[in-house]
């Protein structure tokens, strides 16, 4: 029943986005007969609509494969496909903790990119054995030797035996499977020791309730067993035990080295703590696993229904999403301008966009998202310290002793020709250069930057100044004092709290001007002139005027066809529904999104 440890290999696939992780996973599943060909779709492990449409992996996925190796033995391979985007770096880290080795996929036509580095360093920190894979060698631009040299030079690992493949055509897949078996180490563990298993991930399934992904380290995890979560202290009776092939398959037990799922009448994802140690309730292990830091939301914004009557629907929707995504947080918020909504926390801007899109699509809601904000720390004059998630909650200036903002360390790889623009961008964003070196023809720059500057439009601008060739990764490092001011936006002389933001004093004016200009473009002319202003305290720092409508009247009356005119009127009303009334001004939903995208 128990698979001998020597016949198990647990590994992650890590790569920069689009280098071919998911496609390689598809090929491995196919080669091991995990799915019949009619069940096979591209990027089969990306099962959310958004993952498929955007071609990105958001949730790490696990699959157990049976592989008959050249030595005649049958091996159990546990594969984890991980997300590539920085926002989901946290998912990568816990997958890595559950494995002994990694396949490092590098696009042989592109070479090492920022997330290649970020992910491979994590794998090294987890003491992984690493097999470099050179993918896409079917492309004419592929240059395996150059990329091999680059891997050795930049990452400092031996790439002489890197496996050249094409995940697309299937070329080299048998070599990958052999490399997994021969070069990656088997897990270690004691079958007779008390149960010690790592809670790798959990999610909510409509039919099964909470499903927990586990990696057994020592002992055996059995159906019917009473287990205890060492971190939370909660105890559960295991209902189902099984593995993903990638379809769910029930087993009676999981042994050391194995990765699989359990269900145990757990009500909410929030009841489980990722990284927790699962042990036998009666015969517990003496020592828990080290665990890992929970994912902390770093970007916050308010989400409000365009139609105030949809607030309850929004409440239900965020609750349901949270069941599946514990890294997303929310609490109720009221805005003078937008009414009731939620202040939500996200792992990054992509995470924010994805959650917003899922709320709109899966729950059919129209939302307004307010300007994203990072978490600020403040020391007040009475020596207390607070965390600020919402510019609207900013205390009076006289009560603030010091404001600190989060900083990141960013690694950017860019072709040499764009280096000048990239450096200028970082400088404009208040960056501090830490390092500049070369990796082949690519420059690698390391910068410390305020996260606040990055959440707005850094990624978009980096892509545009480098024509899409620069790659970027970051991690939050520390909090540093900052000279920040709260900027208000006034429309028709009334402050719109949803547009208020904290900005660095030196950048307030240019950003204020850019926002006023943008609003002038996106707010349609009304029956009267509308001043749009940016202000700090009582001081106006930028101003634009939206001209009044001059001509808007149907000339021809179409005889008695009042129906036609009424239908046009109804269309106009539909348009108005997608706007929000602020005082006497109607601001289109789109304006809030556009404002986030302004440069300045």
């Amino acid at each position, binding site marked *: 029943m128990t698979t001998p440890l020597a016949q198990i290999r647990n590994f992650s696939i890590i790569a920069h986005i689009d280098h071919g992780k998911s496609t390689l996973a598809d090929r491995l599943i196919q080669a091991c007969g995990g799915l019949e060909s009619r069940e096979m779709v591209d990027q089969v492990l990306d099962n959310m609509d958004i993952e498929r449409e955007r071609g990105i992996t958001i949730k790490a996925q696990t699959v157990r494969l049976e592989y008959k190796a050249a030595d005649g033995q049958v091996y159990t391979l546990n594969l984890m496909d991980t997300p590539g985007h920085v926002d989901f770096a946290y998912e990568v880290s816990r997958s890595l903790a559950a494995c002994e080795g990694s396949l490092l996929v590098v696009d042989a036509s592109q070479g090492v990119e920022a997330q290649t580095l970020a992910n491979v360093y994590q794998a090294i920190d987890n003491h992984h054995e690493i097999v470099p894979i050179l993918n896409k060698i079917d492309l004419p631009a592929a240059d395996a030797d150059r990329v091999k040299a680059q891997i050795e030079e930049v990452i400092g690992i031996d790439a002489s035996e890197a496996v050249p493949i094409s995940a697309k055509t299937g070329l080299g897949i048998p070599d990958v499977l052999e490399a997994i078996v021969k070069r990656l180490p088997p897990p270690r563990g004691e079958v007779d020791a008390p149960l010690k298993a790592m809670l790798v991930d959990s999610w909510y399934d409509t039919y099964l309730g909470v499903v927990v992904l586990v990696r057994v380290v020592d002992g055996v995890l059995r159906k019917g067993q009473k287990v205890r979560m060492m971190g939370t202290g909660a105890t559960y009776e295991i209902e189902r035990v099984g593995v993903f092939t990638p379809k769910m398959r029930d087993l009676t037990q999981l042994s050391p080295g194995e990765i699989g799922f359990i269900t145990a009448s757990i009500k909410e994802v929030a009841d489980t703590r990722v990284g927790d140690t699962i042990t036998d309730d009666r015969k517990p292990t003496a020592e828990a696993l080290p665990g890992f830091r929970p994912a902390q939301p770093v970007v916050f914004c308010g989400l409000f229904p365009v139609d105030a009557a949809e607030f309850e629907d929004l409440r239900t929707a965020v609750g349901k999403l949270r069941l599946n995504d514990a890294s997303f947080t929310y609490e109720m918020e009221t805005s003078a301008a937008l009414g009731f909504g939620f202040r939500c926390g996200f792992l990054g801007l992509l995470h924010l966009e994805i959650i917003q899109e899922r709320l709109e699509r899966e729950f059919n809601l129209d939302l307004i998202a307010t300007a994203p904000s990072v978490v600020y720390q403040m020391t007040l004059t009475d020596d207390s310290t607070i965390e600020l998630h919402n510019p609207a909650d900013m205390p009076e200036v006289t009560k603030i002793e010091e404001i600190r903002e989060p900083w990141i360390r960013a690694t950017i790889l860019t072709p040499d020709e764009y280096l000048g623009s990239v450096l200028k961008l970082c400088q404009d964003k208040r960056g501090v250069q830490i390092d500049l070196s070369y990796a082949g023809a690519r420059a690698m720059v390391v910068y410390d930057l305020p996260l606040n500057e990055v959440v707005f439009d850094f990624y978009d601008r980096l892509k545009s100044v480098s024509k899409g060739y620069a790659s970027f990764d970051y991690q939050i490092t520390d909090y540093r004092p900052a000279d920040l001011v709260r900027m208000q936006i006034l429309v028709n002389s009334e402050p719109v709290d949803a547009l208020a933001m904290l900005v660095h004093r030196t950048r307030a004016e240019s950003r204020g001007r850019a926002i006023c200009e943008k609003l002038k473009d996106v707010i349609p002319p*009304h*029956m*009267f002139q509308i001043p749009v202003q940016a202000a700090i305290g009582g001081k106006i720092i930028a101003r634009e005027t939206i001209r009044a*409508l*001059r*001509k*808007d*009247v*149907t*000339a*021809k*009356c*179409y*005889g*008695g*066809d*009042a*129906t036609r*005119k*009424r239908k046009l*009127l109804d269309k*106009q*009303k539909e348009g*108005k529904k997608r706007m929000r009334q602020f005082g*006497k001004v109607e601001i289109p939903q789109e304006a809030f999104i556009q404002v986030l995208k302004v440069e300045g």
Partner: protein
Amino acid sequence: MSATEPGFGIYLHWPFCAAKCPYCDFNSHVRHDPPDQARWARALTAAIAHDAALVPGRTVTSVFLGGGTPSLMAPATVGAVIDAIAGHWRLASDVEITLEANPSSVEAERFRGYRAAGVNRVSLGVQALNDADLKSLGRLHNVEEALKAIGLARETFPRLSFDLIYARPKQTVEAWTAELRRALDFAADHLSVYQLTIEEGTRFADLHRLGKLVTPDEDTAADLYEATRGLLEAAGMPAYEVSNHAVPGAECRHNLVYWRYGEYVGIGPGAHGRLVLGDGRHATADEKVPERWLQRVETQGHGRTVDDLLTLDEQGDEYLLMGLRLAEGLDLARFETISGRALDPSRLADLTGHGLVEITPDGRLRATPAGFAILDAIVADLAA
């Protein structure tokens, strides 16, 4: 009848034209073979009989033969329908009977026939007094023919109006005011002056989308509109509706029925009506395709394909849409009766504050000159 009593009107639609104008999205059709006038006359009179049974006992204050090009109707056909109307309802002693005519299809003989059949007012589609523009508007007549038609109509009928279209591509305020001044030399006591509208599905719309037809921008359109109103007002023909001007007392009675949100019967392909029946106000419309309309009437006695009972909100919206187009505005008490609601006082206060509408001492809400230019936005603000 009090000063602002809507009256009861009959609209008849003649759906044929000699050619399709590139800006026009009215229900007008070009047919190779001329329609069978006798057959149409029979169908129209049958449809009139059908509606007379629905709304009997009214006194008809106006009849309007619109199109399409009703001046392509044989005088006998016109006579037959007017007789049918007179046979089913009582005609007011001062009944207004208008026929729309295209200058290209005007003949002295036919005009005398229409007059003999009872037509007492003609509305001529002049559109422009400039040959180049008439051509680009796709019209079949030139300025000389237009002026001849105007002269003939003035000789034949007691009342005459003609239509002009402005805000044509590249038109300047100077050129337009000069043209409008010339038009005034020929005008009787009524003029309809429409801003060129790009309507979906027309050839102009295609050209517009491709950038091959550029209409004046919002500011120029506003200037043209103001210039039109100023000039015609000074000439003693103030605007009594957004696009309609008349010497006071010479307003088109029939159009007033629509704008005062009165009761009117709509007969003929694509015609619309508003009928007040036992259960409330109905919106009606007839089949649009001429041949199908004819068949329907011949098989079932009427050409109606739409008959909807309007909700209070819909009626309120329609009264707003129509009533505010008039210089006299709408009656607030009647609005409340029709819609079952009062207009939002804070919105009214805002609009009044911005100088866009005013409330008269006798309880009417009306747009100011500034308000007329942006009436659609005002209506959208006040609608349900």
